């Protein structure tokens, strides 16, 4: 029987903490246990040697394993509950999203409700629960960092994809940000999983799946965001220039400009000013939220432009003088022109933000 000095007890406590025990209650247990063992051993060698022998019994990383096991046992009931919630919400969200997409493609009513419900459940219930259980199951710091990066990436992807579907601005930015986090996440996740033989196989298959999904989402979003829209823009731009030229030719050849021409100038000046104001707000966040550009918008505008061209051609052919031409129908054309320019600026701003 020996009695430990205060310094020796402090030394043991310090060493326990250094070996990775962070739970205070467990530290107390282990400290008392080790002290009891040393005090009651028959070994007559000096303290240091007896202490080393006592610690040897725990093995390498032994204390850390005791803490991991303790945390696991304590948290297991919560984990199971949370995992169940994650499964249920995940199932609901994926069903709502698949149905919502189908409704959207078929232009059936209720698509948006389904998509919004699915995304909300996915983003704010499934993803947090899923990553929380992942996070808690990671006992190492490195694993936890990987979980957090994964959580951010998943958040960005879910919300970005949803914004994309709803034609809300900012989607492209979120998906690019997702790509950034994803590129960090994937190798870390793979390295973390491969080191542990128990998770090696699942991390390979999960990593492959993540890479497929992530790559697919990025490809999808990049392709559709710019080229189609920009091509239509160019077409309308060309049409538009032709109209403006025609209009100014008409104004020049007209002998009775009078109040109509002044009105046109005034209207044009107002339009230019609005466009200018718009151009100065390069921040895509400043774009009106309820004014998204869609295929229908472009088509409608194009139709308006062709109708105006036809009208002008018809009036020229029938030799109707410019002053007799009804001025009012031209206003929608000019306003459509303004609208187009705004849309174009909006697209440019979004693309610039990327």
């Amino acid at each position, binding site marked *: 029987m020996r009695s430990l000095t205060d310094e020796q*007890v402090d030394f043991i406590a310090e060493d326990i903490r250094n070996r990775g025990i962070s739970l205070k209650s467990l530290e107390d247990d*282990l400290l*008392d246990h080790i002290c009891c063992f040393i005090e009651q051993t028959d070994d007559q060698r000096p303290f240091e040697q007896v202490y080393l022998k006592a610690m040897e019994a*725990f093995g390498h990383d032994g204390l850390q394993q005791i803490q991991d096991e303790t945390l*696991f046992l304590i948290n297991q009931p919560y984990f199971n509950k949370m995992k169940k919630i994650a499964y249920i919400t995940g199932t609901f969200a994926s069903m709502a999203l698949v149905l919502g997409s189908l409704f959207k493609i078929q232009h059936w009513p209720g698509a948006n409700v389904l998509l919004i419900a699915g995304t909300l459940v996915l983003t704010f219930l499934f993803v947090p629960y899923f990553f929380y259980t992942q996070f808690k199951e990671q006992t190492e710091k490195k694993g936890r960092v990987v979980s957090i990066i994964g959580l951010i990436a998943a958040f960005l992807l879910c919300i970005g994809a949803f914004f994309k579907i709803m034609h809300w601005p900012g989607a492209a930015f979120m998906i690019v940000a997702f790509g950034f986090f994803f590129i960090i996440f994937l190798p870390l996740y793979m390295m973390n999983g491969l080191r542990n033989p128990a998770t090696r196989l699942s991390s390979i298959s999960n990593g492959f799946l993540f890479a497929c999904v992530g790559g697919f989402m990025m490809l999808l979003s990049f392709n559709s965001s710019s080229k189609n829209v920009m091509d239509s823009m160019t077409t309308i731009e060309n049409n538009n220039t032709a109209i403006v030229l025609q209009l100014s030719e008409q104004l020049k050849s007209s002998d009775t400009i009078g109040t109509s021409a002044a009105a046109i100038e005034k209207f044009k000046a107002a339009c230019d000013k609005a466009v200018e104001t718009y151009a100065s707000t390069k921040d895509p966040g400043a774009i009106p939220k309820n004014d998204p550009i869609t295929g229908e918008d472009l088509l409608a505008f194009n139709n308006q432009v062709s109708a105006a061209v036809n009208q002008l051609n018809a009036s020229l052919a029938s030799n109707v003088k410019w002053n007799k031409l009804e001025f009012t129908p031209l206003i929608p054309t000019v306003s459509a022109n303004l609208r187009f320019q705004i849309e174009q600026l909006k697209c440019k701003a979004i693309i610039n933000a990327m």
Partner: protein
Amino acid sequence: MYSNELVRGTLKTIVLKLLKEEGKMYGYEITQRVKELTDGKIQITEGALYPTLHALEAEGIVVTETMHIGRRVRKYYKLTTEGRANAKRKLSEMADFLGTMRILFEGTPGPQHA
């Protein structure tokens, strides 16, 4: 020494039985008492005991009482009211289990099937 596999499944019940009989015990005391009672045939490791005790505490089956011994704290574990009921169930389950094991391994003739 029995294999870890055998001891693991019964550890919780052993702890509950000791606490039920002794009132309150601390970790090292439990390991020593089991060693002594079983003639060293069952040696509970710290690695198995403390996670189990903490899990029992989290479940509300045991509570701790701390006592300062010089620079360190000794934690005594004791059953709660709910824990006592739980221990009773566990112990009768174990007694039943031991009976069943005896039938299985000692070849006591069971009901004859034609």
